[in-house]
């Protein structure tokens, strides 16, 4: 039997996990090719510590090519441009057009034929959505290791100036009304506060958390409720407590309209416009799809058929527009197979969520101020593994996908660092089950409170350190990597 050709677009958590398991399970039965525009794997959760100068980028990055070479996975350093799921002209062989980003070969285009394709490209960091946002503008980011390093350099320079007696204001949060990944902004603000204390300049700093969440602790998941001290308590209470204890102010329901040097303007859900001055701002960008296009065999553009307007790929979810009250957990994808092309899948951030998890809201001016649903980390890897399993089984004769990984049926375990020190550091440990609330099974809060919990303490920090080393070991595909859960 000829080798099946499996192409994985993207080498982040989802793409790397899927490619690793596909090769492990299929061996010589398939040629697994990973296409990624960057040469390195980035363990993104630890970028937070790069962003405050505690880690160097090399401690969260490693080159992919040698790892893939050792495990028989083909690596193409390139970006995907156009999908041709029907082939072209008379040739029905599906392929993807790619453009090399390898130094010396930049811009060279080629065709990569496939029997199965997994789109795990992750997001485009859409700094352009907000004028002046991002490292090319007037704020910083920790979304990539190089971004985090630039943020760290700015942070450490301000620390030096505070040591000389200057007062500084830090603004941390989300740079647009539709951002996701509030967890990363939360981690950065509390780590920044911890480091200012550790460096003896906390009294010279004002810290403001600026977020598109309706209440802090929403995290794009419509908040989390946990049983504690005889009460069912929303995550807002715990998050506000953490901020209040650390002297961090917060602004919620905010859509950042634009930044200029040292100043951000924003609109709040009540339609009012404000501005805030800062000496350093770390504001996350909104995400959108990477801009993949699609064509049918006659060369007609079918991008709108395959992708949602956000640029993320449509899979087996229910994308019918509906009101918040009509949202159902069953709307969420289960197999991540494209409905039109059975050999096409999407995983991680690259799949289009059917709707937000948090209640959609907009200002009187019509500005949407609603966190987008998170689909990073553990759910991303679990989805990728389920898709890898389905593709493996389909190559071996199954007529369709064999595994499901709905975010409405899986939970997530998450550890958010709140200070990096083996004796005085802390982290918030959380589990949520399920990620997407299911109000039919759990009418009160949409989640099973027996498996949804959270607490802050040093133990969480130890777990965070353990996860950093464990997941880098797994990503490097070192001995027993596959035994480490997603």
């Amino acid at each position: 039997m000829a080798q099946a050709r499996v192409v994985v677009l993207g080498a982040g958590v989802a793409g790397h996990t899927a490619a690793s398991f596909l090769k492990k399970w299929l061996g010589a039965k398939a040629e697994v090719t990973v296409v990624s525009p960057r040469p390195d794997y980035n363990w993104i959760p630890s970028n937070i510590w790069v962003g405050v100068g505690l880690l160097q980028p090399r401690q969260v990055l490693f080159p992919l090519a040698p790892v893939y070479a050792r495990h028989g996975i083909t690596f193409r350093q390139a970006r995907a441009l156009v999908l041709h799921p029907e082939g072209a002209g008379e040739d029905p062989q599906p392929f993807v057009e790619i453009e090399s980003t390898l130094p010396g070969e930049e811009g060279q285009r080629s065709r990569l034929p496939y029997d199965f394709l997994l789109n795990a490209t992750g997001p485009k960091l859409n700094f352009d959505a907000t004028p002046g946002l991002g490292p090319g503008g007037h704020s910083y980011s920790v979304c990539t290791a190089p971004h985090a390093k630039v943020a760290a350099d700015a942070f450490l320079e301000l620390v030096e100036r505070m040591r000389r007696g200057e007062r500084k204001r830090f603004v941390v949060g989300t740079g647009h009304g539709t951002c996701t990944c509030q967890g990363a902004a939360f981690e950065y603000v509390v780590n920044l506060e911890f480091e200012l204390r550790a460096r003896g300049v906390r009294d010279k700093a004002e810290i403001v958390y600026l977020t598109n969440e309706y209440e802090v602790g929403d995290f794009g998941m419509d908040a989390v409720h946990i049983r504690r001290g005889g009460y069912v308590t929303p995550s807002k209470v715990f998050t506000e407590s953490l901020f209040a204890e650390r002297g961090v102010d917060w602004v919620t329901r905010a859509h950042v309209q634009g930044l200029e040097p040292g100043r951000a303007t924003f609109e709040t859900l009540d339609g009012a416009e404000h501005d805030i001055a800062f000496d350093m701002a770390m504001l996350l960008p909104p995400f959108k799809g990477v801009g993949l296009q699609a064509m049918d065999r006659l060369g007609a553009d079918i991008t709108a058929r395959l992708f949602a307007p956000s640029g993320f790929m449509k899979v087996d979810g229910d994308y019918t527009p509906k009101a918040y009250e009509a949202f159902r957990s069953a709307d969420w994808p289960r197999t991540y197979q494209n409905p039109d092309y059975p050999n096409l899948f999407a995983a991680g951030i690259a799949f289009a969520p059917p709707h937000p998890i948090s209640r959609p809201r907009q200002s009187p001016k019509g500005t949407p101020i609603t966190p987008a649903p998170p689909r990073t980390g553990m759910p991303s890897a679990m989805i990728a593994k389920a898709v890898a399993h389905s593709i493996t089984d389909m190559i071996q004769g199954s007529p369709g996908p064999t595994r499901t990984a709905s975010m409405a049926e899986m939970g997530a375990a998450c550890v958010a660092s709140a200070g990096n020190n083996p004796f005085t550091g802390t982290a918030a440990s959380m589990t949520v089950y399920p990620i997407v609330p299911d109000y039919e099974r759990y009418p009160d809060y949409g989640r099973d409170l027996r498996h949804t919990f959270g607490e802050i303490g040093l133990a969480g920090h130890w777990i965070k350190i353990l996860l950093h080393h464990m997941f880098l070991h797994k990503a490097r595909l070192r001995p027993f990597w596959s035994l480490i859960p997603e």
Partner: protein
Amino acid sequence: MVEERLHYTPSSVPQVRTAFFATLPTGPTRWRRTSLVWQMVRFAIINLKMIRVISLSHHAGRKIRS
């Protein structure tokens, strides 16, 4: 309001909230968060809780029944 505590460029952020209405931990709660013995116990308990949720989630990825 935040402007009142600033010593430099004033800005208009009326909805920056004071922490007055937030829940704050008491001394013993703060002490327990970094107590080595207590946190070793919590380390074990948190790991067990996480393993339980991971295990439930892996069951969600079970085979589709034909």
